[in-house]
């Protein structure tokens, strides 16, 4: 049986489009180093074709396993087939792929982004109670599956509550700058922000930008306007500690840890892991000692 120490694993990472992604990459490296695994990371610069190329070149180099953080859910069949033919197990990280490819990978370590949206929505429903609440939404990049799913989950969660309504929804491209710009215009369009009761952002970065916009407009985020967003990056805890943010849903950057364990078990004992290792979508609010979480997360490479 192969020793984990000798493993070489190729990791096709999407790119470095956000702080969360950087954290995932650096946590993956740390986890691999802990287990003495040789992790080769190929950065795809957000392009699917680069990921496919990377997987092909991993196959050509005959690595022991391949981790894939797919940029989209479709289009992996033929390249994963190649990996399968070469008897290289594949583990999906962070995002799932299309159902037709189920037998092509060993397991998927992902969170459920629809569920994340639901958690955020549920929190808002609970917090608002029966009051009428106009929500503005900062979407992720148009077409990105995470954005679509987080919207879907959130919409589903508030659908049964007629008092909650999304009045405006625009893309902030997952970035702080755009989040701020879009929020500025939301505030203008909604009578200086007075009619906005809550902001939902598809990621924390946009929310950090939006919080700035609210403060500059003389509003008090976290009090005048509720905030809920997803990812749980350190900066949102800082805002929470300052009372400027209310809630965030965690998307753990440690997807590689469970994946490495699964691969090790598979290589050593032939254990077939479950098809889906779901990571927890934990909700954090001001009640969770945000300052402490901030301090603990700061070093993770966000």
């Amino acid at each position, binding site marked *: 049986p192969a020793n984990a120490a000798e493993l070489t694993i*190729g990791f096709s*990472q999407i*790119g*470095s489009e956000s702080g969360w992604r*950087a954290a995932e*990459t650096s946590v993956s490296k740390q986890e691999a180093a802990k287990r003495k695994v040789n992790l*080769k*990371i*190929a*950065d795809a*610069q*957000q*392009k*699917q*074709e*680069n990921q*496919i*190329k*990377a997987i*092909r*070149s991993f196959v*050509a*180099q005959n690595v022991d396993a391949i981790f894939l953080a797919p940029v*989209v*859910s*479709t*289009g*992996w*069949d*033929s390249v994963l087939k190649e990996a399968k033919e070469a008897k290289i197990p594949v583990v999906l990280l962070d995002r799932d792929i*299309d159902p*037709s490819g189920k037998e092509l990978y060993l397991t998927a370590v992902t969170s459920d982004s629809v569920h994340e949206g639901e958690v955020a929505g549920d929190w808002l429903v609970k917090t608002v109670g029966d009051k009428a609440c106009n929500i503005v939404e900062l979407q992720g*990049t*148009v*077409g*990105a*599956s995470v954005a*679509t799913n987080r919207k879907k989950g959130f919409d589903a969660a508030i659908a049964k509550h007629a008092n909650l309504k999304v009045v405006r929804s625009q893309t902030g491209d997952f970035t702080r700058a755009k989040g701020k710009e879009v929020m500025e215009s939301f505030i203008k369009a909604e009578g200086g922000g007075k009619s906005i009761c809550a902001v939902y952002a598809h990621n924390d970065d946009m929310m950090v930008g939006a919080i700035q916009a609210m403060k500059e407009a003389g509003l008090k985020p976290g009090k005048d306007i509720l905030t809920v967003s997803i990812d749980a990056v350190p900066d949102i805890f800082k805002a929470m500690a300052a009372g400027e943010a209310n809630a965030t849903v965690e998307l753990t950057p440690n997807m590689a840890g469970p994946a490495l364990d699964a691969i090790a078990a598979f290589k050593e004992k032939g254990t077939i892991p479950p098809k889906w290792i779901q990571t927890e979508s934990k909700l954090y609010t001001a009640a969770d000692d945000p300052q402490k979480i901030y301090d603990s997360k700061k070093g993770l490479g966000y």
Partner: protein
Amino acid sequence: MKGLPPVLITAIVLVAGSVLCAVQFPNIASTRVVGNLLTDNAFRGIVAIGMTFVIISGGIDLSVGSVIGFTTIFVAMAIERWGVPPLLAFVAVLALSAAFGAAMGATIHVFDLPPFIVTLAGMFLARGASFLLSTESVPITAPVYSTVSDFALRVPGGGRLTAVAMIMLAIVIGGALLLRLTRFGANVYALGGSRTTASLMGVAVGKMTVKIYMLSSLLAGIAGIVFSFYTSAGYSLSAVGVELDSIAAVVIGGTLLTGGQGSVIGTFLGVLIQGLIQTYINFDGTLSSWWTKIATGVLLFVFIVLQQGLVALARRPVAGRAGAAT
């Protein structure tokens, strides 16, 4: 028309680069990697051919990436959601993209607008249109797709010459012949030399402009179909930024952005050089996101400098005057 020297130079640069890569990673020198290089860059090669025509004619086409994106999602929606037979979907999407290119060409000619901006608007338009079709990625399950994506000629050494690679090679050859041997090709060069002069010499400049952008969009459409074969899916965000890569490939291939000079084969080699850079970085596999970008930039720089150096060397000896009236 010459054009051989720049092509030869690009070829030399490519070979030199490959040798360097192979020295460092012996695995690269396998038919498998070569086959992968062709397959992985098939859609890029196809768009870059269209871009070559546009650039030689003195224009530029920024819309190709978006047209690819539109094509993939259109084909996917047509086949999977609207129940259109794949072949019909292909024909429809190619007709659409050709018409789109023709419209851009006509706008450029009739209103005398800079191609850069017209095609930039085209880029927004095509991407916007694909968002309207679907923002989600749509898998394609039609049997043609698995047939085509699985089809490949096996070459000794584990290499595979896939269907998409063959489509690309065919288009490269066809494009080269079209540019070199036909009246259309000569007119493309003429337009790049000077639109006014070409028009005074009797070239139907308007028609040519329309045809050239039509060709570029059509090839982008084909590239989109190839991309959809490659991934068996349609996705509105696919091929973002491909336009700049294609322009770079064309220029690395020895074509002047000012128009009037260049060749299809050079572009093909340019695409391979880009592919080689990518492969090298993948094989290295230790580069972080940022070092990947920096390395790509540095390698691009090295290749271009190498090429310019060689071109300058080739130009050096200027022979005496070739025949004059006495």
